[in-house]
């Protein structure tokens, strides 16, 4: 990885030397984020990735970040202005920017766009999503060891495939250790609603759950409820350990740096190709860390083994046999759910109690 980036830097430098008189020697990168860059959460994780790009290219890039922009016509105008201001590489940090971003990409074929969480692609427009389910599977294993009630609770944002697949991964991981475990899910239909998230977390605790999963909540709301309520808790994107010092199970972190750097590299090299970027542990994008000390060494070893298998490809979270909530076998033993099916998943595996909102 490191040698590759050195090579690319060299290439970029050479390029810069050749075209000394043009302005194109620095790349302007526009970043549009749905929420403020806080100390934790989604926008924070994206910004960390962008910082890695800055670090690599130094004066070679100028990054223009506009944060806290609601989806809608205003966001479209701001993207448009970013392009107009000469930003040649755009990072659109919310699925709500999809349709506006796609139109813009089609009008500006020379510019490259990466777009978080979406599903539409174009020649210069790549949606990117993390395979959170890989990390969630490992978390499920840890949770299975620590739960006494055998009930796990999830506070989740929207019932989109990205989050459904994560809940499934969590469930599969837990039940791989203890098949009696069940999972309850509350959909709050918001990325950012601390009050609702906390109420939901408390409801899950009241329902008997003793491990909580904060699925795509941009605030530490659920995490603090876990600490106060004595339940283990984990979350996505960035570590919130300081909000639950004694009950933090760990974090399924997203490290966007490798992907962002590679995308910028590709853009500079002129071979950016719009495609669904679905990135997991193999790509160093999904990273599981900050493990709780309460997890036994034995279990830690088991988790490490599974992790190694997933990275090597020997094992897949969605290996059959897979049974859905209705008890029907969807994938037989020996086969594996295809990527396309996971990307569009609209069903829960057995063990998830709550029905999926339709």
């Amino acid at each position, binding site marked *: 990885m490191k040698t590759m980036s050195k090579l690319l830097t060299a290439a970029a430098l050479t390029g810069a030397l050749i075209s000394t008189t043009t302005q194109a020697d620095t790349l302007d990168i526009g970043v549009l984020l749905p929420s403020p860059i806080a100390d934790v959460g989604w926008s924070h994780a994206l910004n960390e990735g962008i910082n890695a790009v800055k670090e690599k290219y130094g004066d070679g890039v100028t990054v223009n970040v506009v944060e806290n922009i609601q989806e809608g016509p205003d966001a479209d*105008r701001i993207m448009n202005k970013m392009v*107009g201001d000469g930003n040649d590489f755009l990072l659109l940090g919310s699925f709500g920017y999809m349709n506006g971003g796609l139109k813009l990409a089609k009008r500006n074929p020379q510019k490259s766009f990466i777009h978080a969480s979406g599903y539409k692609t174009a020649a210069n427009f790549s949606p990117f999503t993390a395979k959170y389910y890989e990390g969630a599977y490992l978390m499920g294993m840890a949770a299975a060891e620590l739960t006494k009630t055998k009930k796990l609770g999830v506070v989740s944002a*929207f019932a989109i495939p990205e989050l459904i697949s994560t809940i499934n991964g969590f469930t599969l991981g837990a039940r791989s250790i203890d098949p009696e475990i069940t999972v309850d899910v509350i959909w709050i239909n918001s990325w950012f609603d601390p009050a609702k998230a906390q109420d939901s977390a408390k409801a899950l605790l009241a329902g008997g759950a003793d491990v909580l999963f904060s699925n795509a909540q941009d605030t530490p709301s659920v995490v603090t409820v876990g600490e106060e309520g004595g339940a283990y808790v984990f979350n996505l994107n960035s570590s919130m350990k300081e909000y639950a010092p004694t009950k933090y199970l760990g974090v399924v972190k997203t490290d966007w740096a490798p992907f962002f750097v590679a995308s910028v590299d590709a853009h500079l090299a002129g071979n950016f190709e719009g495609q669904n970027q679905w990135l997991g542990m193999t790509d160093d994008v999904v990273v599981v860390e900050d493990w709780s000390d309460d997890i036994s060494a034995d279990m830690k070893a088991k988790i490490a083994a599974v992790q190694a298998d997933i990275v090597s490809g020997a094992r897949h979270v969605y290996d059959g046999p897979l049974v859905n909530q209705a008890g029907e076998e969807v994938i037989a033993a020996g086969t594996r759910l295809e990527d396309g099916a996971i990307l569009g998943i609209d069903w829960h595996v057995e063990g998830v109690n709550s029905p999926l909102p339709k």
Partner: protein
Amino acid sequence: MVFKLVKREHASQWMLLVTPLLAVLLSIVVSSLLLVILGKPVLLTMHSFFIAPFENFYSITEVFLKFGPLLLIAQALAVGFRAKVWNIGAEGQMIIGAICASAVPVYFVDSTSGWMLPAMALLGAIGGMAWAGIAAFLKTRFNANEILVTLMLSAIALQLLYYLLLGPWKDPMGFNFPQTVMFQDEALFAPLFSGVRLNTSIFIPIAFTIAVWLLMEKHFAGFKLEVGGQAPDAATYAGFSAKKAVWVSLLLAGFAAGIAGMSEVAGPIGQLQRSVTSGYGYAGIIVAYLGALHPIGIVFAAFFLAVLQIGGDVALVSADLPISAVQVFQGLLLIFYLSVYTLVNYRLQPARTEKTASQGVSS
């Protein structure tokens, strides 16, 4: 020292013209100070706010794209405010308008009929009016405070929108993302020029402005509304129905907001999604008052606020200003405008207090 405001007998006409310029000047001075403290480029920010919106054709069309819904909603709200009917729920009426209009392309996904757009406008208008009509009914039947009712109805409208987007109306091919299908071209207003988002819906607010001007300045119905607002006893004496004034005010606002909502989903958004109003329902209240509740004043106020918002978006990108700084600048402009306007119409006079009085008595 306590001061009180005393209305001036004759507000200087010349001053009224200078007011906006003075307000702009004051907010430039104060925000420049803030920008220096923040370490942000002052000139670039000012350029973003006041020049960039007019710098190229696209920006100008964007100003008018914002101008339309602001104008439409503010004109209707002003009619109600002049009749002292406090509808602050245009936001909710706009959402319902957007929802009802969206029903057409959601249920007739493949239709290419030329009636799509008219049907959407009709449904949007009816939806907005029905939503406002609830407040009118509760006000006239049970004397329920329309401020609370319209505000609460806005919250309900939002939840209804969320429900539809998560449930029955979500795009079947949209992987559960909370949004409807993208509307077909027949369900969209045609762009006025190629490559811009400004579309033919801009003519609706303009026509509506003329209609409101005729209503309030030339027509007996507007006179009746105004009497009801300025002297309710005189309205009763003359035999003008107060209930009718409530109905007319709210239905008019519901109509305008409904059409505005429809114009957004059939315009720049092109689908129904979680944020459809861009805050026009609330901004419309500011515009109405900024325009002194007068149909012509509101035209200028809506344009001013549109420029301010477009300028703000530019400042976000070009001057690297955080969104909160942009909002502070916009807020400063409004505050200075209103203060200067008040001081032109009123003068400050020290209120006499007990303390100063006792010193004056010599006995």
